[in-house]
């Protein structure tokens, strides 16, 4: 719907793709395509014309070559866990990368690994474990999400507070451009010279091409880890504790806030982690690194929490207790899934000193619209995740939820924040882009995209509103899909 290109003849395209990957890996029937109409965010349904799943690097190159020759718009997709409506599209070829799961090499001495885009995030860490290494970015979906998807979204996770987001862990990417050409961005063997095209590619949400392989940096496992749980009778006290920990100069590995409703949802689920159900908020705080001095940091953090009004602060006694505390946090979205048929997981960032007031404002917005907001988020980064369970089939509820989410976004921007910290813009945030970027800035982004994909065939209609692209001239006829199959 948003590409200006007429979709090529589907039968011919399917035939050509089948000759590359085999009949099993080209899906055409609506019933088969159903699962690819949505991603991890409810509320968006887009119908691809077909889906293709190359199984090798060579097949992927050949598939993208066919798409280029046929001038077919396509949407790359990993595990489909994205939360921005990014990995879907009407009248496109859905390019599934989840069969490309090889870890091509692992160089422990240099802490580098070369992986295919479909490698699942935790499997990389598992492969690195025997060398005392791990892959640091740890989105909550890490047991299923792929490195290729992580690269496309510049994904985050709790431990990004200390270790940085995906981009900080990518040394190089071999990119297959939408034209079918191959180019290496970045440099694993030394410094990179010239424009940071790797930095531009990571987080480009599939609009600049697909990764053939990714060279990731691995991080050494810390010598020691301490995980604390602090519980508060008032969510604003917890937010104040976050600000004072950040201001102290200690950089925790993670600093997560869960509010009372989230804690209750987790504790009522199979992921119960032993959080205090009467808490208005808990902080899950982790420090790691050299064993020396770590307990001094723990003491300072405990003291800061108590000063901010914490009722209790405890440190996990062993690895098992630590894992349990983390499971509650990482599965909290799953636990919320029990509350209603649908869950909107929102993503925004505010300056860390503004957390108390923004949380209070979010509470007021939820109350005004009669929706239930559950907050679980990367507090140390100011990266909010206000979530609303609801029933999308109830039109009135859906309307109130969307109104509340829109007001929350405006409140975060008004506080000096941004509209997404780690989930990406996709379809969901595209209308918010003009809130934070001028027409000139959005136009500059369009121009950048056009360098990588002049035909605008890769994930069309995402990230930057089409109307912002000056040279964009689409006739209404072209917009509605072109020739039928």
């Amino acid at each position, binding site marked *: 719907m948003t590409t200006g290109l007429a979709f090529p003849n589907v039968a011919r395209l399917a035939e050509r793709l089948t000759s590359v990957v085999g009949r099993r890996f080209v899906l055409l029937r609506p019933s088969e395509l159903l699962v690819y109409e949505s991603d991890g965010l409810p509320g968006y349904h887009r119908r691809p014309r077909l889906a293709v799943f190359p199984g090798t690097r060579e097949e992927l190159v050949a598939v993208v070559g066919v798409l280029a020759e046929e001038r077919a718009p396509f949407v790359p997709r990993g595990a489909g866990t994205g939360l921005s409506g990014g990995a879907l599209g009407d009248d496109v070829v859905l390019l599934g990368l989840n069969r490309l799961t090889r870890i091509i090499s692992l160089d422990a001495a240099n802490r580098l690994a070369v992986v295919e885009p479909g490698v699942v995030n935790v499997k990389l860490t598992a492969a690195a474990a025997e060398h005392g290494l791990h892959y640091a970015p740890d989105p909550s979906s890490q047991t299923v999400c792929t490195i290729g998807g992580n690269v496309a979204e510049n994904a985050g996770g709790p431990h990004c507070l200390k270790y940085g987001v995906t981009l900080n862990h990518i040394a190089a990417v071999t990119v297959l451009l939408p034209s079918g050409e191959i180019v290496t961005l970045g440099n694993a063997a030394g410094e990179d*010279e010239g424009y940071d095209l790797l930095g531009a590619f990571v987080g480009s949400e599939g609009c600049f091409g697909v990764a053939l392989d990714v060279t990731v940096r691995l991080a050494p496992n810390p010598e020691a880890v301490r995980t604390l749980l602090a519980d508060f009778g008032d969510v604003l006290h917890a937010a104040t504790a976050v600000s004072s920990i950040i201001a102290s100069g200690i950089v925790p590995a993670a600093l997560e806030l869960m509010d009372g409703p989230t804690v209750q949802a987790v504790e009522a689920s199979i992921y119960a982690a032993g959080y205090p159900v009467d808490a208005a908020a808990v902080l899950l705080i982790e420090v790691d690194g050299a064993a020396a001095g770590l307990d001094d940091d723990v003491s300072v953090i405990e003291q800061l929490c108590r000063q901010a009004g914490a009722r209790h602060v405890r440190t996990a006694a062993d690895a098992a207790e630590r894992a349990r505390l983390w499971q509650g946090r990482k599965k909290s979205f799953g636990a919320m899934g029990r509350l209603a048929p649908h869950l909107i997981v929102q993503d925004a960032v505010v300056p860390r000193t503004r957390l108390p007031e923004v949380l209070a404002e979010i509470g007021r917005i939820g109350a005004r619209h009669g929706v239930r907001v559950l907050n679980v988020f990367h507090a140390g980064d100011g990266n909010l995740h206000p979530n609303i369970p609801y029933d999308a089939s109830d039109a009135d509820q859906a309307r109130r939820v969307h109104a509340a989410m829109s007001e929350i976004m405006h409140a975060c921007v008004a506080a000096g924040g941004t509209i997404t910290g780690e989930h990406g813009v996709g379809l969901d945030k595209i209308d918010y882009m003009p809130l934070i970027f001028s027409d000139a800035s959005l136009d500059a982004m369009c121009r950048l995209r056009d360098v990588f994909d002049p035909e605008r065939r890769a994930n069309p209609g995402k990230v930057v509103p089409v109307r912002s692209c000056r040279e964009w001239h689409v006739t209404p006829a072209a917009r509605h899909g072109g020739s039928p199959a």
Partner: protein
Amino acid sequence: MSATLPLDVPTLAPRTAVELQAQLAQCAAAGTSVRVAGRGTWLHAGRPVHAAARLSLTALSGIVEYVPGDLTITARAGTPLAELQAAAAAHRQFVPLDPWGGDAGSLGATLATATAGPWSSGYGLPRDLVLGVELVTGDGRLVRGGGRVVKNVAGFDLVRLSVGAWGTLGVITEATVRLRALPEVDETIAVSAWGMPLDALVVAIRRLQPAAAELLSPALAAALGLGDAETLLVRVSGNAALVAHQRGTVSALGDHAVVPADVWRRLREVEPAVASVVRWSHLPDRLAESWQAAQRAAHLCDGALVHASVARGVVRGILPTDDPAAVRGALDAPFGGTRIAERLPGELWPRSTASGARDAVHERLSRGVRLAFDPGRVLNPGILSGDVT
């Protein structure tokens, strides 16, 4: 030494980004090329630029917003780093940017050149530290990328693209960068590295993860008053217990002494006014190859100074000469890693891409990016490799 501008070219000195927009729009329309000169401190770096006008950012200076609790600071591009450091120090914080050359240079120049000093080993490269930029493109458009918060994936990344672009996409007019809190203890230890196998040194430093670690050639150690042997300079910081532990680990490497932190400033300012500078880099465990390549170059030039950012695997050779004959060897010797020139005698620049040359697709993308932001190529024409008509 790279050619700089004749003194008689007109100088633009905008006081606001809006003024700069009008000036650059005019330059673009007239085809007037512009040398972005910042505060005029580092014009010897990069390829020679022949431009019809000079752009000074001295008047575009000052802190725009500093909220200590957020550990971020926003300032105009012409603000000297020293001014930012002083403002941050008042709140026991610091800007983890320590470019070669010292703190007299501007924030904008530090970011535009992405020059990475000793702290980049511990705190990250300039690209990792910038949260947002405002820039005026070559055709006078005011563009913003990123924001003022520490995590942000909204839109395509114009921040990373403009940092290290040497002003060729747009003139950075304002930037927001991350700050760090000053550590409770900050200690610098000089260890004799004489006879120490480099491989073992790399492993030890990458395990220790100090704030900075530079290996100094004997001549450089001597220039800094640290004796006349290869010396490892390590900066350890954190709480008292951590620093005590790190001090113990570093001390076990060899003869050592605690030295004043001022040595880092002196290291950054050691480069003479007339010099050629080349960097060799490779995989971390191949530091020895880069070190040897730099040593070979140094042997061809009296008074050469060499140092290595051990954790990053980057070796930097400072050759105190602008005699092409003395520098040619540094560029022509075979080397399997990446060689990047910072400063060269003008006529040697065409040789500097012998290593690390990119393929045609990469060059086409780079050229496309350049033209998307500066269609008339008026900003710093020729300063980057491959930036030719």
